[in-house]
Structures are given as C-alpha cells and as structure tokens.
C-alpha cells in the first residue's frame, strides 16, 4: 500500500502479547492516518464508561502517509486515547523524528492496551519487539529517561518517554520526545503511565513505498524551493514561535494573569527578540524541516543552569504572562522544570495561574498551598507548585486533576475563573475580542485547544465585534487543519509560510496512488470530526450544548485594559455562535450529530448505535 508501511502493531501489556495486523483498505480510505486512525480505534475499541486509567483504554501512536518522506515536514505522530482530562476522545501530536522511524520499522499505528505488571518500556527494533523492565527508569525525569535509554540503546533510536507526572496520573501529563518535543495535550502521558509504560524506543531500517517517486520529487521540490525563497523563513529560523508573543499582545490576545487580561504590560521582557539576544544557544529542527523553529536555550535559577528546548509561544503565554513572570529566562527555566516532570506547559501554566488568582482572592490560603506564597510573578511559587502537582502532594494532588477538578473543591467563585472547556485548559489566545476564535475553542473536539481552528486573523479581517456569519470559517478550519494531523505532516509550512494547499492536494496522489480530490479529503476530515463528537455523545447521556460553553469569566467580565478594553462577549452572542455552528455542521440544537449527517459521512454504524441508545435523532 503506497505511502504506508502496511501494518498495525498491537501490544497488550497485561498479557505481554505482541501481534500484527495488516493495514486495511477500508481504514486507509476512510480515515487516512494519524489522528484519523486514532479516532477510529478509540471509538471502536474503548468501551463506553471505560476508566481512562484502566486497562481497557488504549493508546494509539499513528503516523500518516506523508510521514518519514522527503517533503516538508513529515514529522508528526498523533497519539490518541480516552483522555483523563476530559473523559472524552483525546489526541495530541508530536514532531521530532518518531513518525518516520515507526514507518521505517514497518508500523503505521501502534496500539498499546492493557497494563504491565511492573514498570516497563517497549523496544521496537524492526521486527524485534520486546517489553522490557523499566524499574531503573521509573521516577526519572522525562528528558533524563530519554538520555539514559539513548546511552543504553544508541542514538539512532527514537524515544518517547513520560516523567513523574505521567507515572502519577496527572491529567495534563505529556509524552516527551527528541529532548524537547511534547505531545502535550489531553493527558496522554497519564494514560501511558497508567499502563506502567515508561518509554517507547523505536528503530527501523525499511523504506516506505511511494506510488510516483518522480512526481513526489517534483512536488516536494517546488515546496522546498518556495519555502527557501519566502522572506518569512529567516524570521522563523531566527525567532521560532517566540515571535508570536509581542504580536499576540499587540492585538490583545495574550493570556495574562489567569486570562483576566489579554494585554501584558511587561511583554518586552518575554519577547522573541530578547530571547534570541539573551538565552538562545542553538537551533533545532524536526525531520525534513527548513524552518528549525526549535530554540535551545540556557536558563539559570536557584543556582542551577539548565538547557531547554523552548520556550515557544504557548509556553511563554501560559507560564509567562498568564502567571505574570517577568523575564524570558524565568519562563525558560519553568519550561525546563515542566519538561523534566513531564507536564504539559499549557495546562501547567493554567493550573498555576488559577491557583495564584484563587490565592489572591482569598479562595485559598497558605494553609491550602502548604505554605507556598502563591503570588502572580513568583517563579519560586511556580516551581514549587508544579513539583507538588507532579508528585501529587498536598495542593498538587488537587491541581493534578486540572483546573476543572480543583474548582469542584474550591467552590463557585473559583469555577467562574477556571479557564477550560470540557476539562481541558485553554491554550494561548484570549478570545473575548475574537468571537470566531472563541467559538473555535468552545467546539474543539478535545477541549480548549487552538490547533483545530485558529481564526484570530479572520476576526481581525472581518471585524472583531461581529458575531454573525463566523461559524462557517471555524468549520472550514476544523476540516482543513486536522487533515495535516492525518497526513502525519506539520502544518506550519502552510499556515505560517503560506505554502498553497494545492501542493498537499498534489502530494496525496503521488505518495499514495489514490485519486481522492482535496474535497474528498475534506469529507474524510469531517467524518473524523463527527466520529470524535459521536464518542462524546455515546460516552455521556447528558453530553451536549453545555459542554461547548466557555468559562463564565469570558462572558461576565469585560476586557479591563489594553487595545480592546471594554470588549465583551455576551451569553446571547455565544448562543448565536453555537446555533450557527450546529446548523453548519448538521447537528441538532443540543450539539449532537443528526442521523442524516452521520449517514452522509458513511458512519451508518455509528448513527445506528447512537440512535438505538436514544442519544440522537
């Protein structure tokens, strides 16, 4: 099968059984790869009501047809499971070099189920697959674990690890890879930890068949050439994603002090330019990527100097301005602490900022924090709190359940300022002045994440105070952007450098030999979107419109200062956005896919199952 290794690898950690299944035509035709494969298997194999930490949850590592090929930049592995953060379908993707290595080892998707009796790691060395003891790794940091395994196995292995946070089931524990790349969102690291799986190490030596190698060379050649000639490339190489911070501040979208504000008066201390001048010591790129957005930085704090990859924008926003830290070096150090503990920096920044605001408001005191003076601006407090979260000590045990979990204990006023949707903390764009972006966060299938639809510039282009008519753009993005996660390719070259989508439409047939048009591919993406929604509807009898609602802060408080001071989005506005969105999707007014919609998308079996359960009409 062109573009694929042709093989699914299953590992049952309970029994130790390893098995192979051929990749089926039906799976490839309907779900493409990556997140599509993840959604398919999680829906099919994780039974309703299954404990996300239990042996019946599965963890799917899947690349896609573009991964590991010489094109820009087939580097993405999607990791999917039932999320402990949301109790719903979750996925997160990671760059680096894992996706290609899995395919070179002959694997399109790795499905890990069950639970090992003792700490273990999985070795995949072409056809040699072993579940090995990991007692010597348990308790180590995520980066340290990778370092130890590289020493033991060799540098050519590509390794994914968890840190103590994953071992201890923190709902925002991430999976680490390639020193400083993370599958950060949805607690995939906690699922891995719940299976007693500390790491996966992969080495492969096979090649991947391509339908039209000359065609691939032609299309990829044009793509690389256009990238190299783009004037933006040098800025990306120089500043990476850190360039975003000052822009986000200038248009009032930078999360500040637990999203109370969207404008940070001290942003100059967090800028990408300052980062480059003061702490960057090297560049780093994912597989076949000329952008090299990874920045290696040195940072010192408490007498310790560390090397860290990052911080990129999301980390700077959520740990920097959102916790009111003062310098990019402080953010870089905090980034290192989170990476080693195996914590998603987006959710960790949210959790700490939430605790800081609760502390400021007197909702919690030093009795609750274990003596920590949890003030905005304190790197000491940040480091102490995330250590407690990863170890699940004291207040950390509560914050390890995410802001939604902690707010259940801290009461009504805290719930108002717990910034999440569906249990997943909000990523780096405060959206009171960007209604379509607000809708994108509300309706993202994994919770409040920006990667499915990023539409802030659409709001700027058509009017930031306009509500009506914006749902269509969000739906459009929610189909296009996740396609890249199905292909196993990074989307930055398209969204940031403007490579035309036509190039990707041409790549698909030359790589796979399939004659799907771009419109056909978008339908597949819509199918996947509806399948993950169906997972939620099947999972919870009461799932619906209320789950798409943002935190009260966003529609009860006006923006207090900055370029859009006074901006406010109302509950009525949110209803308008959702009504239009559900209509555009063919869902009912409670946000559930209609039988006709699922049937149109080839999901008759899902429609039938949910209809029999009385969940949809």
């Amino acid at each position, binding site marked *: 099968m062109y573009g694929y290794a042709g093989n699914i690898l299953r590992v049952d950690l309970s029994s130790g059984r390893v098995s192979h299944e051929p990749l089926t035509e039906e799976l490839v035709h309907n779900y493409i790869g990556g997140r599509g494969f993840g959604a398919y298997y999680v829906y099919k194999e994780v039974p309703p009501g299954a404990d996300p930490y239990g042996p019946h949850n599965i963890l799917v590592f899947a690349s896609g047809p573009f991964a590991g090929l010489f094109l820009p930049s087939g580097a993405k592995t999607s990791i999917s499971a039932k999320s402990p953060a949301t109790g719903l379908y979750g996925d997160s993707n990671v760059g680096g070099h894992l996706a290609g290595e899995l395919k070179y080892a002959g694997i399109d998707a790795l499905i890990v189920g069950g639970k090992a009796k003792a700490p273990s790691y999985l070795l995949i060395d072409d056809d040699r697959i072993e579940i090995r003891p990991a007692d010597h790794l348990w308790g180590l940091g995520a980066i340290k674990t990778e370092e130890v395994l590289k020493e033991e196995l060799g540098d050519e292995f590509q390794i994914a690890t968890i840190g103590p946070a994953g071992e201890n089931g923190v709902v925002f524990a991430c999976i680490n890879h390639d020193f400083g790349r993370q599958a950060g969102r949805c607690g995939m690291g906690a699922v891995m930890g719940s299976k007693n799986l500390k790491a996966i190490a992969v080495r492969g030596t096979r090649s991947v068949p391509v339908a039209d190698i000359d065609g691939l060379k032609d299309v990829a050649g044009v793509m690389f050439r256009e990238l190299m000639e*783009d004037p933006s490339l040098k800025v990306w190489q120089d500043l990476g994603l850190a360039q975003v911070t000052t822009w*986000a501040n200038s248009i009032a979208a930078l999360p500040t002090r637990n999203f109370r504000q969207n404008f940070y008066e001290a942003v100059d201390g967090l800028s990408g330019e300052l980062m480059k001048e003061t702490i960057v010591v090297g560049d780093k790129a994912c597989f076949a990527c000329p952008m090299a957005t990874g920045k290696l930085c040195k940072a010192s704090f408490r007498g310790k100097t560390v090397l860290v990859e990052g911080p990129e924008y999301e980390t700077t926003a959520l740990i920097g301005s959102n916790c009111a830290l003062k310098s990019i070096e402080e953010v870089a150090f905090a980034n290192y602490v989170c990476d080693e503990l195996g914590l998603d920096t987006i959710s960790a920044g949210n959790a700490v900022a939430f605790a800081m605001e609760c502390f400021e408001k007197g909702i919690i005191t030093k009795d609750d924090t274990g003596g920590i003076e949890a003030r905005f601006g304190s790197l000491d407090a940040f480091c102490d709190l995330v250590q407690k979260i990863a170890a699940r000590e004291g207040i950390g045990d509560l914050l390890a359940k995410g802001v939604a979990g902690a707010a259940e204990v801290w009461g009504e006023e805290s719930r108002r300022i717990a910034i999440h949707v569906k249990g997943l903390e909000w990523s780096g*764009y405060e959206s009171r002045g960007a209604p379509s972006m607000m809708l994108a966060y509300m309706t993202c299938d994994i919770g409040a994440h920006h990667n499915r639809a990023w539409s802030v510039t659409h709001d700027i282009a058509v009017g930031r105070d306009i509500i009506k008519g914006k749902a269509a753009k969000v739906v459009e993005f929610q189909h296009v952007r996740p396609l890249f996660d199905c292909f196993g390719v990074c989307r930055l070259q398209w969204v*940031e450098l403007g490579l035309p989508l036509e190039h990707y439409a041409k790549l698909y047939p030359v790589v796979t030999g399939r004659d799907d048009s771009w419109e056909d591919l978008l339908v597949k993406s819509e199918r996947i979107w509806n399948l993950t929604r169906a997972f939620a509807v099947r999972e919870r009898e009461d799932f619906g419109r209320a789950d798409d609602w943002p935190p009260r802060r966003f529609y009860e408080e006006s923006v207090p200062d900055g*370029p859009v001071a006074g901006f406010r989005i109302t509950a009525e506005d949110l209803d308008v956005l959702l009504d239009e969105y559900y209509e555009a999707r063919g869902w009912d007014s409670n946000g559930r896919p209609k039988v006709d919609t699922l049937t149109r998308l080839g999901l008759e079996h899902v429609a039938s199952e949910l209809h029999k359960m009385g969940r949809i009409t």
Partner: protein
Amino acid sequence: MKVTLRFARALREIYEHLDEEIEVTLEEGSTARDALSAVNLPEGAWGILLTDDRICKIDEDVIHGQTITVLPPVSGG
C-alpha cells in the same frame, strides 16, 4: 516620497486586494504604520516588518525609496 510595500504570500491570501508589491506615496516624516494604513490594512493584520534584512519597528520613520517586506501575523501553529 515613495515607499514600496512587499506582501508575503500568506498575507495576500487573507487580504485579496493586496498585490505582491504596492508603491505608496507618503509625506515626509511618515512611519511604517502610515505606509500600512495607506493600503487599508487593519491593526493586527501584519506580523513582522523587514527592511534591509532587519526588523522594522512599526513606528519607525521611513525614507524615500525604502522597501518594507510585510510578513503575516502568525496563524496559531
């Protein structure tokens, strides 16, 4: 004085009225912001400005004959 604005491809996809290069006529003492206003770009529509292979600040004075490359704002990764 005349200043040339050169727009990156990703920006032209959002704002279809932009050509790859547009020459604008400005008064002496004008800034980069004035140049962008002359082509009806709203605040926040651009990301970084480059001139002579360096970053050009938005409130920086521009001179006759200068070329400014206008990069798009980021698109959220």
